[in-house]
């Protein structure tokens, strides 16, 4: 349980489009296999940036990311894409689904990209949507679904290729409390299956479930005493 599946070394990200923004500074981080971890912190302080870097969606300005001892920051773009397709599932903050496709098709696309046959795609996609409680919405388009339902489709899709790690960016950000509770239940189930889950969130409820909380301020990890001051929940590792 305690050997890390994700590890970062002095992870730094500087955006330089017009003016310089240091979004992440010297972040050293370990996420144990099978854990449920939360990334918390104020808006604009680098939470999404961190999630993107450990998910191999972006390259750091300096520092390293290891995933199962593979140095993500050293592999080619194509290899990185393969790793994303097989090992990682994403649920993004704002926009997740392709609007022209039905819920079922959205889940299928992820499997199509991994080269899975059409028959298997259909079966498995239906199964996953059932798992997230959307068995009656298979043919619905994203614009016919509520925000919570869309997030659940996104979770189903993230699980499509049976990834080891699920990365979520404020999945409950704009959900009512009932939807949020449902979402938490899903997340709990997924984590119980042994998958490593990393969630960026502001939600105390999510933080309650977490075994580890990573608190970020101004692109830096906040440790020890400071954490206790700033978190009402405290760290529970």
């Amino acid at each position, binding site marked *: 349980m305690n050997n890390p599946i994700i590890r970062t070394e002095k992870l730094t990200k500087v955006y330089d489009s017009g003016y310089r923004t240091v979004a992440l500074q010297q972040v050293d981080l370990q996420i144990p296999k099978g854990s449920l971890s939360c990334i918390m912190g104020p808006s604009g302080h680098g939470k999404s940036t961190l999630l993107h870097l450990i998910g191999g969606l972006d390259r750091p300005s300096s520092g390293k990311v290891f995933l199962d001892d593979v140095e993500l920051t050293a592999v080619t773009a*194509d290899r990185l*894409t393969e790793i994303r397709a097989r090992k990682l599932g994403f649920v993004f903050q704002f926009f997740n689904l392709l609007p022209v496709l039905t819920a079922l098709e959205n889940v299928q696309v992820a499997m199509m990209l991994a080269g899975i046959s059409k028959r298997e795609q259909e079966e498995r996609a239906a199964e996953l949507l059932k798992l997230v409680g959307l068995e009656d919405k298979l043919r619905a388009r994203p614009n016919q679904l509520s925000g919570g339902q869309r997030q659940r489709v996104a979770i189903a899709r993230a699980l499509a290729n049976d990834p080891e790690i699920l990365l979520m960016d404020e999945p409950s950000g704009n959900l009512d409390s009932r939807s949020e509770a449902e979402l938490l239940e899903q997340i709990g189930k997924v984590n119980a299956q042994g998958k490593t889950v990393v969630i960026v969130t502001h939600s105390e409820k999510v933080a309650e479930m977490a075994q580890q909380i990573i608190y970020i301020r101004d692109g830096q990890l906040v440790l020890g005493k400071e954490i206790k001051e700033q978190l009402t929940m405290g760290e529970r590792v």
Partner: protein
Amino acid sequence: MNYFKLTWKNITRRKSRFFFTLSAIAVGIASLVTLLSLGSGLETEIRKQADVLGANLVVTPRGWCAYEQISVLTGETLPEAIPNADVEKIAALEGLTAFPYLTQRTALKNQPVPLIGILPTAMKQFKNWQIDQGRYVLDKANVVVGSGIAKQFELASGDLLRVRGQEFSISGILQEVGNRDDLAIYMDFATAQKLYAVGDKVSFIAVKVDDITRIDHYILQIQEVANVEVSSDKQLLKSVLAIVGSVGSALKLVAAVAILAAFFGIVNTMMTAIYERRREIGILQAIGAKKRTIFSLFLCESACYGLLGGIVGVVVGFVFSWFAAPYIGQNEFTAFLGSEQSVQLFNAGITLKALVFSVLVSALAGVYPARQACKLSPVEAISYE
């Protein structure tokens, strides 16, 4: 889910944009198909007509332009310009036979019909005409009629017809020969000259030579005895084809402009689509689409426009040339097209060429946008609300 289904869902998501982009490429391809099908019909028809003449040399008055030379092949009315004296001098030369033509026009039931003055016996032998009905008599009171005209105007041997106020009897109907010779009234040469008051002039002279290898020698000889222009049938064919070619170039320009416009239409559509879908591209990349996949996906979309637009264009093009052919046929330049059968309703070669071209052009139009698409970074595409 497969890549084609995804492509299809993507290109049809904006119905009106899909329709307009498709129309643009369809118009371009339709004009190309029209050009190709009319053009190829035109050329075969010209070659056929050149054969109909059956002569090795054509003697025309000096100073005729290529426009009038075309008319030699099409059987249009021509100014009469070579005096009989020259005809006789040329005919008297060793090793060749001369057939003077006086091409005029008369009317049957208010429709123009070519009337050609010929030397009856010589011409019959030269053309190897057979009689279908009646007898082959051409003189002051008798004419013969080609089978096509006879059929069209329901004429039979023994019928009377009026030419310039004078009555003629149809002595016979020629057997069908399957070319333009079927579409004329033939009159004795001298009678026609008198009737049309052209003095002792002829329009042009077809010449058949005994020894085809000495053609240059005959040309010189003819030009020694008469002040005329002499061209071989090959030269004539060449100059006529050159003119048709220049008409063709103009059409080609139209097709090229249409296709160029369609090309930029597709570039524009694809750029817009990529801008609108940059987030979706980010999502696709995040869930495992390689740059190569994104590139092919968009290239496929634009090629798809080419395939669909091409199919529509081919159909429209053939339909259009089918309907346009008779009208174009009334133009002197393209009078060869008089008969519709020279334009094919469907031609597999042209279809294939047009479709391949259409797909290639569209795919090419998609290259730059598709490259832009796969350069997008997944993060930038999904980061903002």
